[in-house]
């Protein structure tokens, strides 16, 4: 599998997918067409799903709109399915100190997870 790198913009996150199974999503997410923006990422995720490496996902999102919430929810859903099928999946959800909104989303999404190791991590400053 080839790695994937999508450069971040003011309204779309930076996305990295490594063949080793490490995914990182960081920045802001409020594209005009959220489905079109995330499609290549979900295609890439399908390749990783078919592989056998453990998965590690790092979220460092600062802001996302309500359309992106649904996409993130679907992503968590897929990670949980993988975990339930015996894949080792770990998720780190980073939020900035004082940012209750992003923290609460992390808590909310993690409620979907039973077979994934989830960590909520505060970034200072």
């Amino acid at each position, binding site marked *: 599998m080839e790695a994937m790198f999508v450069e971040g913009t003011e309204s779309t996150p930076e996305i990295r997918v490594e063949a080793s199974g490490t995914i990182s999503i960081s920045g802001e997410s*409020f594209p005009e067409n959220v489905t079109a923006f995330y499609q290549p990422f979900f295609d890439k995720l399908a390749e990783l799903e078919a592989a056998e490496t453990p998965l590690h996902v790092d979220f460092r999102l600062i802001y996302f709109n309500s359309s992106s919430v649904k996409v993130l929810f679907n992503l968590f859903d897929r990670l949980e399915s993988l975990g339930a099928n015996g894949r080792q999946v770990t998720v780190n959800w980073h939020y900035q100190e004082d940012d209750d909104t992003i923290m609460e989303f992390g808590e909310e999404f993690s409620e979907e997870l039973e077979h994934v190791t989830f960590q909520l991590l505060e970034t200072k400053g």
Partner: protein
Amino acid sequence: MEFAKMNELRNLANQEGVIFFYNGYFSQKVLLAVGDTIKLKFQSEDEDRMTGKKVFSIFVEQVQNIIRYSNDTLTGDKEEGEMRAGMVVIGKEPARKKYYVSCANYVSDSAVARLKNKLEELQTMDRDAIKKAYREKMREETEEESKGAGLGFLEIAKTASEPIEFILQPEGGGKHLFLFKSYI
């Protein structure tokens, strides 16, 4: 516009604590440009960082609603690059000392009943009920009429510090004017 009228408009905006006012066609590009300005404005203010983020969040939801649903369009339905007309006002209300984000746009008569029901229901909800509805909506399949996640108004209600306010007034010609306000 005559200078006297321009002055009136300016004075009114000052009285209402207006920080930003836009009336015309919105696109994702306008949203990005104005969004940047709002971020800078709040960074330079002596405000709690999260207040600025909340204003920004509600602004994005309202503008994306206009871009997707306003009845007055320059471009028609498109996957990307849609431009639709509306008005957005961001300000700090002098009396309440609270920030507000308001918008106005035309909606088709056929969309009125659904919008009205949805928003009236939101107005009856307290914080916990809003969070609960949000959680449920997040898990649902997206509604057919919705171009986003159908979570936009719930997101605004969840972020706002007071119940949302709105009116829908008939304008003739198959459309209503939709006016909407939320306090941060």
